[in-house]
């Protein structure tokens, strides 16, 4: 218990020190509030506009979550196709790299043109940007099954369906989670970036990205900081949800859980 509390206390000390430094900079250099608000002003903005903040947060969470969910479903299905043969992989793999390297800001205007502004466009952007890591990691998991395990299944005349559901898919779950962990981070970034371009045009219905744009145009810097804070909270939230799911599904049997036991 103490071993866990001490690092936590240290982290809080660092946080307090950063706030003090922040405040000190404001006093010493007399920075105007619209350039850099005080921590106190940010806190006040969080409280005062809490409902709007939560509304923006939940819009972005829905878009990022929807995009992530779609890339997990689509990513696993595509990985299943990739796992069929080396030949298929050679033919299609370059396109997943394309998916990873195309700058999202470059295609966002296109998507906006095709789908129109709003949650659908943003979800689509989050989906596109988070798809590649799911495909790559799941494929790796599906094809890296020990040859002797395949032999064992063949010795019992296992059907292709049994090989898939009782061997390849369960074996790929740890790799799938590696993919989801990476994808969850970029899905949030993708959603916020997407909102900068394609967020809702109706006031009060925009997610974090849209609200950040709006707050900066109005020089509401304290609220802008509150929104950035909310975006960070969202990223952490996604990370912890994925970590929890990973722990839930893997802790009983996977070696990664043993590494944690040993700590």
């Amino acid at each position: 218990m103490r071993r866990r509390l001490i690092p936590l206390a240290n982290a809080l000390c660092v946080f307090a020190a950063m706030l003090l430094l922040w405040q000190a900079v404001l006093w010493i250099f007399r920075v105007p509030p619209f350039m850099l608000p005080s921590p106190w002003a940010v806190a006040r903005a969080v409280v005062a506009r809490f409902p709007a903040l939560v509304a923006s947060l939940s819009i972005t969470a829905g878009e990022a979550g929807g995009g992530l969910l779609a890339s997990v479903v689509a990513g696993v299905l595509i990985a299943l196709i990739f796992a069929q043969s080396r030949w298929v992989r050679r033919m299609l793999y370059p396109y997943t790299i394309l998916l990873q390297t195309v700058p999202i800001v470059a295609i966002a205007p296109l998507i906006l043109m095709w789908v129109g502004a709003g949650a659908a466009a943003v979800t689509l952007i989050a989906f596109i940007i988070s798809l590649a890591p799911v495909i790559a990691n799941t494929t790796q998991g599906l094809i890296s099954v020990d040859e002797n395990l395949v032999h064992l299944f063949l010795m019992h005349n296992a059907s292709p369906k049994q090989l898939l559901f009782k061997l390849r898919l369960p074996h790929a779950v740890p790799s799938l989670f590696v993919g989801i962990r990476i994808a969850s981070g970029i899905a949030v970034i993708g959603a916020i970036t997407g909102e900068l371009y394609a967020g809702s045009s109706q006031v009060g219905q925009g997610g974090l990205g849209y609200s950040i744009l709006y707050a900066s145009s109005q020089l509401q810097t304290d609220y802008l900081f509150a929104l950035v804070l909310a975006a960070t909270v969202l990223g952490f939230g996604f990370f912890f949800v994925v970590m929890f799911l990973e722990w839930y599904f893997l802790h009983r049997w996977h070696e990664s859980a043993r590494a944690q036991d040993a700590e």
Partner: protein
Amino acid sequence: MTETFVAPQVEFAGVSKSYADGRLVLDAIDLTVAKGEFVTLLGSSGCGKSTVLKLISGLTSPSAGTIRVDGMTPKNGRETVSYIFQDATLLPWRTVRQNVGLGLELEGVNGDRRREKAAFLLDRVGLGNVGEAYPRELSGGMKMRVSIARALATSPKLLLMDEPFAALDEMTRDRLNEELLRWREEQQWTGIFVTHSVAEAVFLSTRIVVLASNPGRIHSVISVKLPFPRTAALRASPEFGTLALEVSRTLREATLQ
């Protein structure tokens, strides 16, 4: 009682195997294993002993010659064959009990019957109390016991073993050798065992096939006429020592050829 013809458990007639690149792995193997025998294939690494097991199980096909398993082609004969690999090859996401039931599950045996059989076999291999544990919680020797229980669960007539105890320490290996013979007595399967350990070969076998390498071929066949049941005490007997020495000498000949 009239004598009827009984098909041998395994029959190799002029079997050769070469890789895709043309390299010859096995050259003209003729070998007949009768029902109830325990035959060990002994040879240095690279002599194709594992390939023999893969051929028997139909996981790979011969380039020449014919193989019969219980009178059938290897693929058709599979139903009554179990394979034990050098690694325990357990599914880490399944409990020990679910691992033991795997073969039965793939063959469509219902859950109750599987549980019953798994519990019985885990008890037989001395692991009655770890059925609900996951493989990562077990030692190497325990994992191998689970692997053996899984192989025995489908009531095989032929058990193929590919250096199953090579990765274990000597004490564990000796004990598992003794128990393997006890399980054989209870279940009456035919055994084909691959190893490069002379002591293990002599202790387990009714017959030892010494293989020479490059390409793999039969150098000589040695009968082991030590009486069953064999126990730990056998290893200290002069007969065992003499035979082990002879097998050792033959193996060296085969390797140096």
